[in-house]
């Protein structure tokens, strides 16, 4: 084995991120590392490269017990990492980038540019890349930049190249070029750790796969012995027992009027052709693997990103929003996926975070009506069971579940007709999860239309009245309630529609 990581554990301020995870890679092997957001992939990589220090476990690299103190130390030993956003200096030339931080010098201690150029051109030639090494890196396409980064790794005598979602910004032709490069690396005995989530690509290029979930490595296998369905099942887990199916009325859903209808929506490369409907008083699920375009679809509906093709109808009327404010005016709310990045205003109080969207309606001559604000906040804190010291506590001090409740209340107090909720229970403990799902159910029963984006099977199965499955920016299946089952969802997600 080139690399053997065993029983790796790591916790951040008491919260466990890795629990005895393991990873083994042989020389000249391409290993796939897959898992959902938060499964622990990047923590594992960062421990390997020395960006984090492990709490326990062993790492053998080339049969030597190692503990890298910094990423620089692992690089010196032959572990190179190519990140999604490639860490090259875009304004500097190709040759300069390849030799960055270990430039050849002349006898006088000056840069030996001639040696740099010749060396850079030679290594790029081994990858069939014939480019002007004096051009700035920023001039080239994403695929070429990636190959430059790989070439740099090779000149550093890398034995293991870690690629973090290398294909996420590449088109099909560029992916082919990258795969040729990976095959060249293999022939030279270099191992590749390939982190990705496009199944077809994984099956094309990888020899073996390691699957992570909830900080643990749940399966290792040769790629050929792991059917797609099985792989998805391992990734998403199936702890159905943890949830009770949430009671639903058994009326005829198809008779309810359609409130939101998205047809053939497209924007950029992430959303190509998505159709989704949400009826009055139902929870419509939006499923799909990471990168399938779920969040992006929500952003289009809410007017954050531009709708480039297709149509969005609200109650039958075609709408096109330039800004979220327009969507809000039409009675739409969006609870976003990442609370920290685009949900909470960390330093503001619970009271203010909760009423931010309602603020324009809370004013008398431009001044915030404090009494009404207080009344609404008190009501929702009680209704949703937000645990806090006082409404004036900064929201950043709350737990994830309570922050999520505040953000949910932010929209509920605007009395919306459509609520889009992206990963409603991300980063929330199991008890609060069921509570939030039940809450959504009750709201739907009162007539709210909910579009629930989720990557947790059990959540979709427990709460959704219908699930639309996305794959690679396209809606590939719609499962009605009577068709909903774990198997059906999994096979649609693995894109094996029978």
């Amino acid at each position, binding site marked *: 084995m080139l690399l053997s990581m065993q029983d790796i554990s790591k916790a*951040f*301020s008491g919260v466990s991120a890795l629990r005895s995870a393991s990873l083994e890679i042989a020389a000249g092997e391409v290993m796939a590392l897959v898992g959902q957001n938060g499964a622990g992939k990047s923590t594992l990589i960062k421990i390997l490269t020395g960006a*984090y220090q492990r709490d326990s476990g062993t790492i053998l690299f080339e049969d030597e017990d190692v503990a890298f103190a910094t990423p620089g130390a692992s690089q010196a030993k032959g572990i190179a990492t190519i990140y999604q956003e490639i860490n090259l200096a875009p304004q500097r030339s190709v040759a300069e980038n390849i030799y960055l931080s270990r430039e050849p010098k002349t006898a006088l201690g000056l840069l030996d540019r001639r040696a740099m150029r010749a060396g850079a051109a030679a290594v790029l030639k081994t990858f069939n890349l014939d480019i002007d090494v004096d051009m700035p890196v920023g001039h080239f396409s994403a695929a070429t930049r990636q190959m430059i980064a790989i070439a740099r790794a090779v000149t550093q005598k890398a034995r293991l190249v870690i690629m973090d979602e290398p294909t996420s910004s590449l088109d099909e032709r560029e992916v082919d070029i990258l795969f040729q490069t990976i095959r060249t690396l293999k022939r030279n005995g270099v191992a590749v750790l390939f982190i990705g989530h496009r199944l077809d690509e994984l099956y094309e290029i990888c020899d073996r796969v390691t699957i992570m979930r909830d900080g643990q490595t749940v399966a290792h296998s040769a790629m050929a012995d792991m059917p797609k369905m099985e792989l998805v099942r391992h990734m998403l887990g199936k702890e159905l027992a943890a949830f009770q199916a949430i009671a639903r009325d058994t009326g005829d859903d198809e008779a309810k009027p359609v409130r939101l209808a998205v047809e053939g929506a497209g924007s950029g490369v992430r959303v190509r052709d998505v159709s989704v409907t949400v009826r009055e008083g139902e929870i419509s699920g939006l499923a799909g693997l990471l990168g399938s375009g779920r969040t992006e679809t929500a952003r289009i509906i*809410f007017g*954050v990103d531009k709708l480039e093709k297709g149509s969005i109808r609200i109650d039958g009327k075609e709408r096109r929003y330039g*800004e*979220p*404010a327009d*969507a*809000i*005016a039409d009675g739409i709310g*969006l609870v*976003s996926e990442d609370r920290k*990045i*685009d*949900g*909470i*205003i*960390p*330093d*503001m109080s619970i009271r*203010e975070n909760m009423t*931010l*969207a309602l*603020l*324009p309606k*809370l*004013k008398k001559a*431009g*001044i*915030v009506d*404090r009494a009404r604000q207080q009344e609404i906040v008190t009501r929702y804190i009680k209704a949703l069971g937000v645990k806090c010291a006082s409404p004036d506590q900064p929201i950043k001090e709350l737990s994830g579940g309570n922050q999520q409740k505040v953000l949910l209340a*932010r929209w509920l107090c605007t009395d919306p007709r459509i609520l889009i909720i992206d990963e409603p229970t991300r980063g929330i403990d199991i008890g609060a999860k069921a509570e939030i799902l039940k809450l959504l159910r009750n709201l739907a029963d009162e007539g709210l239309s909910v579009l629930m984006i989720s990557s947790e099977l059990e959540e979709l199965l427990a709460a959704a009245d219908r699930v639309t499955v996305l794959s690679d920016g396209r809606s590939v299946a719609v499962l009605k309630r009577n068709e909903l089952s774990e198997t059906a969802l999994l096979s649609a997600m693995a894109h094996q529609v029978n």
Partner: protein
Amino acid sequence: MTTIDTSAPGERAARLNMAQFLSRYGTFAAFILLLLFNLIVTPNFLSWQTLNVNLTQVATIVIVAVGMTLVIATGGIDLSVGSLMAIAGTAAPMIFMGKLLPIENMGILIILSFILPVLLVMAFGWFNGMLVTRFSIQPIIATLVLFIAGRGIAQVATNGNLQVFKNPEFQFIAMGRIAGIPAQVIIMIIVAVLAHCLIRYTVIGRQIIAVGGNEKAARLTGIPVRRVKTFVYIVSGALAGIAGLIVVARNSASDANLVGLGMELDAIAAVAVGGSLLSGGRANIIGTVLGAFVIQLVRYTLLANGVPDAAALIVKAGLIIIAVFIQQRAKG
């Protein structure tokens, strides 16, 4: 998540509380300390004369710094305030001296010489806002444009000549007194109180803080981020304009080269010392006022005790470093 503090919890809490205490009351404590120091050391400190000098000198800094606080609260910065002061300060005398408008009535001219220059620099503030919001130029670069060009405009308008005048009606804003209080001090108080209420009690005020606190999240709650940002640059422009009028009125002369020179730095310093985060999301108007007072008192203390103005600049720089350092610690 990534930083791991290894110190014992109790020790850490104590350190944090000290930093938080300093960040909350440090400016006030510094102000009190400076007052005490002066009472003991500086001769004749306790006199109407001293109070008058300090209040009239600090008024323009406070007025401009209040606008700066709003801009900084959105995560921006306005370098053009000094140059906008020069524009307003040169436009006003040109109006009441009849160089610009064919109006004979002195009363109307005086009124216009208050209103038009301020409207003019508000337009320039709007221009700043447009550069920042529509063209997504970083605020420090966007406002650098008028920092450079604004003073140029004022100089070209006057051919670089000094405008000297004596006009008691216009100069009332700097020379006049209401109930014994200098008019500019009253303006300062009104501006500070209004801004404080704006931030605390109005929708736009809370939206300013939200935009600075997390712009992405603010946009997703329907806050018109561009409009909010443009608004603060316009307000900053208007307040710079008022300060420009006060400065020329006080000097009985308008020199495009000198009006508001270096004011952007005093204003930023007042905001920083006053405890508003330079990264946005917080606007402490009372802090800014205190910050301006501290800076003014430091300068006065050093001057009154025979230390040259140049040395005062170094002390000012030291104050800013301490203020920013305390902010960083309090955040941790």
